[in-house]
């Protein structure tokens, strides 16, 4: 993942510019990322005002790599990726920013042109594989439909492709199972079917929106391993959206943590888990069980609730829930900046580096947020309701 400040320059009249496909403003450079999202904002008109679901996010995905987007419900992680595909377009949606896929801005693409990208170059799988498959059509028919939407092939060829894909994702006896209905599969098998359908057209990018949330833990692991194997075999880049840090720990190369429609921390998997720098990330990490800590260490939930996305103040959205806010926060929305001289590790928090190190030092050893705040010399307010 590259820094958001990293300037992406258009080719300056170089010979390869002439090779650009008609309509593309900038020819993809060899080293340009597969997907680059720049300052994406998505708002929905509602009776109570504009709901700013995504408040300006930027990230890049390199070909063949995996980006994990982590956040709780309503943090804008799903909306932001649905927007890439044009699935949030409507008269009541306000979309700004740029989504450059191989150099082409998808937000400026007509719906008809975008349709040719969906399911073909960018595919998507969803949380609940039962409700995501049409209950009345055989899975073969649904995969064939996806293949034929983008390729001029006969039904027979498309069917052969469907059987091939079902075999690839580990459905036993695919030649027979291709004629089964979704309700005749188990949850894990259904998600395999969804993956087979998504990958049937060899997409360059797969967006997986909570792909394991509706599955048993044992099956989750199988699905993640399957995605990992297919990524290695097919070279597909993956954006995996989840509320579960455990899911991205194993699969992602980079992680972006979202809160209230913005990215609050962004780093490689290793950096994020070894040196998390945002108080919200600390909260997430302290709320999941760890095997390396004594058994009696309590899990600490993140107190409070995410803010309303209507009329968000121009201020740090996490301040109200942050146990370490006192004494170091400055008014105004902090920028997402490189943290403490760690390249490629960005954080949206103005806390001084020493204080960060002190607090995480306590939390990492199983200490409570109160203990951490005390050690860092932060005055604790009385119990807030």
């Amino acid at each position: 993942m590259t820094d958001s400040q990293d300037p992406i320059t258009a080719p300056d009249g170089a010979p390869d510019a002439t090779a650009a496909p008609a309509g593309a403003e900038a020819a993809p450079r060899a080293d340009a990322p597969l997907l680059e999202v720049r300052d994406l904002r998505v708002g929905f008109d509602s009776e109570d005002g504009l709901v700013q679901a995504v408040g300006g996010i930027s990230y890049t995905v390199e070909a063949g790599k995996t980006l994990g987007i982590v956040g709780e419900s309503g943090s804008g992680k799903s909306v932001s990726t649905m927007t890439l595909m044009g699935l949030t377009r409507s008269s009541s949606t306000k979309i700004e920013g740029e989504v450059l896929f191989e150099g082409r801005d998808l937000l400026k693409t007509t719906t008809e042109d975008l349709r040719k990208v969906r399911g073909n170059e960018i595919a998507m799988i969803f949380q609940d594989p039962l409700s995501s498959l049409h209950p009345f059509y055989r899975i073969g028919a649904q995969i064939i439909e996806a293949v034929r939407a983008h390729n001029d092939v006969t039904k027979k060829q498309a069917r052969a492709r469907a059987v091939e894909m079902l075999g690839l994702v580990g459905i036993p006896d695919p030649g027979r199972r291709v004629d089964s209905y979704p309700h005749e599969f188990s949850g894990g098998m259904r998600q395999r079917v969804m993956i087979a359908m998504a990958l049937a057209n060899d997409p360059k990018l797969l967006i997986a929106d909570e792909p394991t949330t509706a599955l048993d833990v044992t099956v989750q692991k199988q699905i993640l391993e399957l995605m990992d194997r297919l990524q290695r075999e097919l070279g597909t880049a993956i954006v995996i959206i989840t509320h579960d840090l455990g899911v991205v720990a194993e699969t992602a190369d980079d992680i972006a943590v979202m809160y209230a429609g913005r990215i609050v921390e962004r780093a490689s998997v290793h950096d994020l888990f070894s040196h998390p720098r945002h108080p919200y990330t600390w909260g997430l990490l302290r709320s999941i069980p760890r095997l390396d800590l004594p058994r009696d260490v309590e899990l600490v939930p993140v107190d409070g609730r995410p803010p309303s996305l209507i009329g968000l103040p121009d201020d740090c959205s996490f301040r109200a829930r942050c146990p370490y806010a006192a004494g170091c926060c400055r008014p105004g929305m902090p920028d997402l900046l490189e943290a403490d001289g760690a390249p490629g590790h960005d954080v949206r928090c103005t806390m001084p580096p020493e204080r960060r190190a002190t607090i995480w030092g306590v939390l990492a050893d199983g200490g409570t947020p109160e203990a951490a705040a005390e050690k860092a010399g932060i005055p604790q307010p009385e119990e807030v309701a």
Partner: protein
Amino acid sequence: MARYIIRRLLWTVVTLVVITAVAYFLFRVLPSGDPVRARAGKAPTQERLDAIRASLGLDNPWYQQLGDFLWNAAHFDFGRSYISDAELRPLILDALGATTWLVVGAVIVWLSAAAIVGTISALRRGSLPDRVAMGGALVAISAPVYWLGLVALYLFASDIGQFKIFPGAGSYSSAGNVLDRAEAMILPWFVLAAAFSAVYARLLRSSLLESMQEDYIRTARAKGLSERRVIFKHATRSAITPLVTALGVDVGLLIGGNAILTESVFNIPGLGRLSYDAIQRGDVATIQATVLFLAFFVCISALIVDLLYALIDPRVKYE
């Protein structure tokens, strides 16, 4: 599936026997007048009454009467009208033709109007066409079919209408070829279909709006399918299931209720009119025969709808 159909058909026979029995007792205990007296003329002697009673088989015990009726009905013999003494089988077969015309045409108008209006309303929710259609539907649902029939005649009938466009009441009996008969049915079709298509347009609208929110619609869009295919293949298929469920009951309602009224208003010589006249005259034999026929069609249409349901939704299994 075959076993299911056979079982359903057997149940249909049971239903018909029960319905016939109920109709039989209903009209025996109703003070609708003694059919024997109705035939006997003025001031009949007791001997004459007894003779007529015996000729109609009404001196037998009730269970024998019912048994005889059912036995004969099973052989497609419905006996004779108590009033006109005409054989009922040809009478009913004649009437059946007109009723079939009326019902089949009305169901086609009903479903196609509902499909078009409901789909447009759902896709253009909140637009002027949607509001007009849904407002109009409310009027159509609220209007009783006999009132709507009279209004239609007053407005459009070629004899008494303000705008003499369509053939009016009684034109079906005098119609010669198929085209004339179809023309004579235009007003009855629309009158009979109006309330039902209004209900179904509203039903389809809400059902389609609901299915457009389903996760698999999002999947279909994410696959890169055209919006037309998403709506007409993926959304519509699931949107029509609740309609098909309701259809089984409503076709029965249409045949057994509104069709009778429509036939009366438009003077169509169908089963409904036959039974309406029979009820007015206390002609128990004719009532029983028509009730049996109408019940038969209701049962069969319900069976067809249930089988259709299994065709639409593969999760439904009959065995």
